């Protein structure tokens, strides 16, 4: 396999992982989000599900283009098996918010880095997605803050769910930032520092809560 082909292969794998996670999150946002804690949160969860599924579709179609699929794109019946287990296992509001926050924050870090590179064709494909995803992150972040300040067992259960989701997302980021093919193709700089940025983001979330709780 040539370097160019290896680069394309790595890019497809990256995009499919993101698409799979968005596909699963879209599904979970409908299944679990429909019984959200209040009307506004529920309506937004359903609207966001459409957004996540739209993002997944865009990324899958991009992968088909990269694979050289001509004409009508195949229907997407299921994820390709690369979605995070924590996302697949989302069963309640707490784990939904934890996964939504961890996954979208991780994806945002990767895409923000890609946008800063000189790949104009890539940038044009993801600019709208990144903009829309920003709202999803604000939503998840604000709900995460609320759950961390809630009463009873909720803060502990949320912290546990967030820890699990964040660990999986961080492991993925660590794998992605080591990809020499993607660096060679110029999608990332030599030291993308994805895991470091991700940790900072999580620390910020917890630190804000500690300040508010005092």
């Amino acid at each position, binding site marked *: 396999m040539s370097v160019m082909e290896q680069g394309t292969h790595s890019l497809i794998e990256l995009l499919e992982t993101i698409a799979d996670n968005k596909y699963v999150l879209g599904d979970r946002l409908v299944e679990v989000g429909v019984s959200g804690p209040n009307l506004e949160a529920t309506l937004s969860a359903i609207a966001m599900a459409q957004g996540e599924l739209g993002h997944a579709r865009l990324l899958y179609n991009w992968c088909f283009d990269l694979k050289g699929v001509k004409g009508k794109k195949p229907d997407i019946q299921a994820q390709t098996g690369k979605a995070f287990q924590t996302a697949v296992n989302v069963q309640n509001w707490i784990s939904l918010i934890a996964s939504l926050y961890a996954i979208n924050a991780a994806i945002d870090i990767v895409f923000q880095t890609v946008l800063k590179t000189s790949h104009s064709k890539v940038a044009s494909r993801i600019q709208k997605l990144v903009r829309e995803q920003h*709202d999803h992150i*604000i939503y998840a972040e604000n709900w995460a803050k609320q759950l961390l300040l809630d009463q009873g067992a909720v803060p502990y259960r949320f912290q546990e769910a967030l820890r699990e989701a964040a660990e999986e997302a961080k492991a993925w980021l660590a794998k992605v930032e080591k990809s020499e093919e993607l660096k060679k193709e110029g999608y990332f700089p030599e030291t993308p520092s994805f895991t470091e940025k991700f940790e900072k983001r999580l620390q910020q979330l917890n630190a804000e809560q500690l300040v508010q709780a005092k």
Partner: protein
Amino acid sequence: MIAEKITYDIFARINRGDNLMHIGTVEAENSELAKVYATFTYDEEDWTEMVVVERNKLNWVKKPDWLFSEKGAEAL
């Protein structure tokens, strides 16, 4: 939930130069969530401008007595 919900009024404009219309309300814990809720709830138009305003922050110039206010009904 610990955080109290606040009522936000939502105003939007379809095209540039159009009147700014009151299109509805959302209840949210903070203005960040209010903006997100407004975006996702009132997405029937491709608004040029949309703004959320905390109802308590409105500076009333004129305010009529609401119907049944004597009986203790609260309008706002």
